[in-house]
């Protein structure tokens, strides 16, 4: 009764590629010269070049991680670390080069912006090519621009926070990003300002063997709030590309930030991302993290709760199909009294994919009164797929509460029978059960994203269940 699984490459709808329009691309491979070249082209201050070069040393010193996914086919010498597609980030959609505009039009950007976004930023290869934000937000002092421009325009606030949450010495891929970063979003929300509609960024890799290393830095000042949404796609080539981003978030006293990602990279992208937030007193950080695409994703959004009563919510789903390995999870670090955190993780594996949950809940010496609730559920859809659940719970305080639960199951025969007994076909019934399974995630997405997400899942599931 098992039907042949369709080739995932045919399923991926963003797999089109466009002609190379770049005005500069660095030599393949990573050397000191490449790093210097990037910094020079960007006209960066001296301290950033030093930061990059120091990070390059870190990168070279770190061994390749041996846990998580298989990185043996990742060849750092075969990657182009920097491609500049156009002269500058345009504020008007009309001014974006036609080729690139076409690409984003196909992806529905900035059509979406006109409808419901407060601001949008689009990154093509290494640089942001389009950027716009509502005037009202600008007047309130909200800064939303590409990270390179922020370095030039807001050097103090930039230098104060950059690299403080994820230092280059953190891990091999954070070091790599620190050495060659380009683009990404910079957001500053001033004290007390509440941004009601989401800010959005869209990342697109178009070239073969291209590495995209965007760097996002978000500072939400006291009592402010913001929701940032990002999406990512790439065309399919026969060889692999690398996406290795760093996201740093600083949520100051009483601030609230939600960071939503729908990662739908092509199935030949290594997606190795370090995402981390610091939550100060009474701040709330929420990661909503959807992993659908990529060849291998290793990503564990973290919240370090530094101030009393800080909150962390992580909601993630991972779906691994043919040839895919999603190694995703979350880290919640409770370092102050009365912090609370929840992790809800939903993993689905099918067609031989591997969807893992890997997580950490740490309660430090001063975390008295803190609580964490963690729930991981996994659905395995066929006989060739697998899933591991690898949580670490570290407790160094006697006045905390930790609850952790996990289940692994297949779609139950009784549920299927029940739905089918109402006339729903087997395939629709399975799809319905899966939609229900990830509903805690989709209900937290902005409307348009939820629709897109459901569409993606349906697309992934179509004709694929035996």
């Amino acid at each position: 009764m098992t039907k042949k699984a369709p080739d995932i490459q045919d399923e991926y709808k963003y797999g089109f590629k466009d002609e190379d329009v770049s005005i500069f691309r660095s030599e393949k491979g990573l050397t000191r010269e490449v790093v210097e070249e990037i910094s020079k082209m960007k006209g960066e201050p001296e301290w950033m070049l030093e930061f990059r070069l120091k990070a390059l040393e870190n990168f070279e010193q770190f061994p390749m991680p041996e846990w998580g996914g298989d990185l043996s086919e990742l060849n750092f010498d075969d990657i182009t670390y920097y491609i500049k597609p156009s002269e500058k980030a345009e504020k008007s959609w009309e001014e974006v080069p036609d080729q690139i505009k076409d690409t984003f039009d196909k992806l529905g950007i900035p059509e979406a912006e006109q409808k419901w976004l407060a601001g949008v930023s689009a990154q093509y290869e290494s640089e942001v090519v389009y950027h716009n934000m509502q005037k009202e937000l600008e007047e309130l002092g909200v800064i939303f621009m590409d990270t390179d421009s922020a370095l030039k325009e807001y050097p103090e606030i930039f230098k104060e926070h950059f690299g403080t949450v994820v230092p280059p010495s953190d891990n091999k891929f954070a070091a790599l990003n620190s050495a060659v970063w380009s683009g990404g979003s910079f957001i500053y929300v001033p004290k007390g300002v509440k941004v009601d509609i989401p800010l959005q960024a869209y990342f697109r890799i178009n070239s073969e063997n291209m590495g995209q290393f965007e760097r996002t830095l978000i500072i939400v000042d006291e009592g402010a709030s913001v929701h940032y949404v990002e999406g990512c796609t790439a065309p399919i080539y026969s060889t692999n590309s690398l996406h290795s981003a760093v996201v740093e978030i600083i949520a100051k006293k009483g601030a609230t930030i939600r960071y939503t990602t729908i990662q739908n990279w092509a199935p030949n992208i290594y997606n190795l991302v370090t995402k981390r937030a610091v939550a100060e007193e009474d701040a709330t950080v929420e990661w909503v993290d959807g992993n659908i695409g990529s060849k291998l994703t290793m990503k564990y959004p973290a919240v370090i709760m530094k101030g009393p009563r800080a909150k962390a919510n992580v909601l993630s789903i991972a779906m691994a199909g043919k040839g895919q390995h999603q190694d995703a999870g979350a880290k919640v670090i409770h370092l102050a009294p009365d912090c609370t955190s929840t992790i809800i993780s939903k993993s689905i594996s099918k067609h031989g994919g591997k969807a893992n949950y890997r997580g950490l809940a740490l309660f430090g010496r001063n975390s008295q009164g803190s609580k964490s609730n963690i729930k991981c559920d996994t659905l395995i859809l066929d006989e060739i797929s697998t899933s591991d659940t690898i949580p670490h719970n570290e407790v160094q305080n006697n006045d905390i509460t930790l609850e952790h639960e996990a289940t692994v199951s297949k779609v139950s025969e009784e549920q299927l029978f029940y739905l089918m007994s109402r006339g729903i076909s087997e395939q629709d019934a399975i799809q319905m059960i899966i939609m229900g399974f990830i509903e805690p995630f989709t209900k937290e997405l902005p409307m348009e994203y939820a629709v897109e997400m459901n569409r993606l899942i349906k697309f992934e599931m179509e004709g694929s269940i035996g």
Partner: protein
Amino acid sequence: MSVTINTNFDENLVTHLSNVKKEPEWMLDIRLKALEVYKQLPIPRFEKTRIDKWNIDQFEFFIDEGDEGNQVDIPEDIRSMIDVNTENRSVIIQRNSALVHHYLPKSLGDQGVIFTTLDNALQEYPDLVKKYFMNAVKFDENKLTALHAALWNGGVFLYVPKNVEIEFPLQSVYLAEKAGLLPHVLIIAETNSNLTFVDYRFSTDHNVSYIHNGVVEVYVGEGARVRFATVHNFNKNSYDYSYRRAIVKRNGRIEWVMGEMNFGNTISNNTSLLKDSAASADIKSIFIGTGRQKADLESKVIHEGDHTESKILSRGIMLDQATAIFNGITKMEKGAVKSNAEQAENILMLSKEARGDANPILLIDEHDVMAGHAASAGPVNQNDIYYLMSRGIPKDEAERLIIHGFLASVVSRIPIEGLQEQLEKLIERKLKR
């Protein structure tokens, strides 16, 4: 005469040991091979516990040259655990690896039950021993198992033939008085047999630093049931490295009941391999962390057969500056269809300075299975205390009751009353009450 030799483990010592014991050639071969591996391998790395600074091989080594075996007195410390007035007991007591007491009722011997020292079994049933020795635990797994295989000294051999059900528990006691303790326990339960085994290991002198490096291998035949209950009680200067493993055949069942009551550092590794259809495993362990002791406790079940079932329950109470890592690992291999696994790790944190990690890990390679885990950590639930107090129970007593309830899963399953009492005493001592 018995000798103790300082720690320089070389071929001469190993050969001497083997010769004194009049071991067959193949055993000496294993010992020498293992010695080579031990020398070559680095100190094993545990994910969360660093043992590079732990003592794994600096200890006095004891060779029983025969004259201690004559002693038949049951040492005072363990007298209470053995009811000498009944036929229904079966005991082996070893001190520093030398046999001091052995009793097996004739009725069991008549049914073909073999319960003797491993040394003796090696003389009388060499083929049986050869077939199973270091088979579930491989000597080249790591430096610790290699050291054990090279120097194992003492231990028991239990063979229960087909369809034999033993109603009362078989018992073995090991006491360390002055040297390293490296016993090897080999249990073979043939088809449809049923047995309960109780194993108590302890040290006497509170100042000596003991090394315990023990291996337990249990082979559960088709439809057989084995319950293995153990209590370890080594002092705070000691290091305990224990590898326990069971291989379970079709419809067989292994139950582990473990009271990890050491005061010193502990590595405890327990694995059950459910090899065939409908095999099952139930693992229950308790640990109380006191002082500055560090412990890494792993319970693992590997499901290979279809319709296999497992339950892991680990409970820890953390006091003082103790550190403990509780790893629960459920592995579902491809083909383990319709299998079912549950896991729970619960930690009671009773000290600000203690640390307890609970890592409930599920590794699933088969889709048609059910697996779940739950972990929790925190202080004694105040609502529970309040509830008991509302019924007139004083606070201290309420707390005591709750803690004892928390540990009851293991305590109540120790089948020998004397040992159960001993375990309760140890719990009280650890909780400083």
